[in-house]
């Protein structure tokens, strides 16, 4: 049977695999560091898992609370519900458990929830008002694909290391404040060595913390591309998403991002603000630049018009 294939995005898959591999290396480096310093990781792991599990299991409720979004019934927002249900049928996934509206005029949307059945899609009033039918459909498809790809699960669990390293960093910080480093200091030489080890661990943990943060943000950007791609395939109209994105981006930079997919923890210390500058801002963003996303969608549209995508299956 012939099947029109939209072509896999090999490059994106490779990039994701590479980022995942690097993340694995960072995990291993962290393990080695702990082993070297003789730190028992059990408390840290338990703390990390509890935090992640809390995010993971509470994400659907948390999001409605913290953003002030209100779940809407099909009677209140029939079009919104009907559109999501049609897209869910097409994507062969269950309709998300809750649809919610956030009362702000800035057009935006996000999705959360640990699995497709518990998922929540939130759109702002501005999105429903300012985007046309095709654009709304494209944005909703993008959010549905986030759910289908289980981005909340992937990113929260990948973020475990950020939480653990952040925890250790804080512990070390407080220990150093209260003179924990010297270990009593009876034996000067031994004490000096202990201080060196602690300093080494401290610096190593900071490096690991920021490396893993960077990698997870990178992964998050790649998953945005993947969701864009999935949306274009689902609606069959890549340019609808492109035009929606350009509308959203007009206003978006003016407000703080309320995207809860981003793994936020222990922004405590300094470095984020120290790294400002255009290139760094791109590295530290959970989303790729809109121009790049639009460019990719344009390429997809071009692919749809090319006879060469005809492949035999």
């Amino acid at each position: 049977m012939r099947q029109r294939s939209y072509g896999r995005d090999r490059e994106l898959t490779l990039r994701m695999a590479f980022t995942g591999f690097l993340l694995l290396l960072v995990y291993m480096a962290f393990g080695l560091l702990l082993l070297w310093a003789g730190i028992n990781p059990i408390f840290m792991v338990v703390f990390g898992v509890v935090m992640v599990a809390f995010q993971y299991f509470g994400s659907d409720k948390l999001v409605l609370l913290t953003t002030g979004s209100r779940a809407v019934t099909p009677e209140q927002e029939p079009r919104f519900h009907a559109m999501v249900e049609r897209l869910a049928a097409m994507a062969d996934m269950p309709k998300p458990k809750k649809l919610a509206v956030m009362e702000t005029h800035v057009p935006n949307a996000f999705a959360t929830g640990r699995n497709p059945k518990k998922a929540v899609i939130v759109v702002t009033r501005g999105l429903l008002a300012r985007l046309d039918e095709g654009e709304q459909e494209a944005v909703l498809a993008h959010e549905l694909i986030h759910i289908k790809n289980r981005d909340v699960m992937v990113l929260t669990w990948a973020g475990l290391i950020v939480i653990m390293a952040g925890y250790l960093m804080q512990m070390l910080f407080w220990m150093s404040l209260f003179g924990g480093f010297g270990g009593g200091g009876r034996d000067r030489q031994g004490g000096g060595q202990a201080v060196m080890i602690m300093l080494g661990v401290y610096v190593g943990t900071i490096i690991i913390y920021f490396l893993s943060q960077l990698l997870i943000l990178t992964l998050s950007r790649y998953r945005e591309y993947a969701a864009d791609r999935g949306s274009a395939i689902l609606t069959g109209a890549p340019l609808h998403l492109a035009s929606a994105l350009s509308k959203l981006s007009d206003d978006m930079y003016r407000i703080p991002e309320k995207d809860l997919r981003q793994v936020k923890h222990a922004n405590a210390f300094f470095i984020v603000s120290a790294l400002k500058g255009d290139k760094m801002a791109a590295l530290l963003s959970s989303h790729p630049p809109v121009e790049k996303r639009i460019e990719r969608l344009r390429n997809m549209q071009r692919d749809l018009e090319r006879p060469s995508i005809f492949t035999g299956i």
Partner: protein
Amino acid sequence: MGLLGVLFGRNKLRKADREQFFSIVTAAVSLRGRTDLRPSDRAGIVFNPVESQFFEELEAELRDLLRVSAHATGTRYEIKDDGYGTRWVVLDDRDFEDLVATIHLVAETVTEHGFGDRLLAAVFGFDYKGERAYCVYNMKRGRFYPFVLSGEKERDNAAEMRLCALMEEEKIPVESSLERWYALWGIPF
């Protein structure tokens, strides 16, 4: 979706599964005597169009085919958008088997053009105790489910459950998970 699909965020649409589609024919024959469930003589097939010249070629061919088959079987047709991003070929024929055959023809043509994954559902209209009822064949799942409207925007779940029992009696493969009984608002017939 498999583990790799999740890990790499890969997405494909599921291809149409038409294996069980014809079970509606035998069921319709044995339901013929009933007075509470009557075919509305209308059916449709719904798909999600792609913005591409190849899809436009497909639609042109569909129109030609439908014109020819209208000539042969007397099946009237209409192509309509529903405002939810999907497009309908609506058919009108008193002969139920002609409806089924024409829907099959449309599905076959769409698949031949390589757009089988754009097919969403085939829908048969019924009058069930005075309410607008539909027998929906979900192409993604290869299963039927009932969809009954009591008003313009209201589903009659009780009637759907009764109709479901009736369908099962007639050996129609019914979708077992209720959350997959997607509401199809805006059916244009």
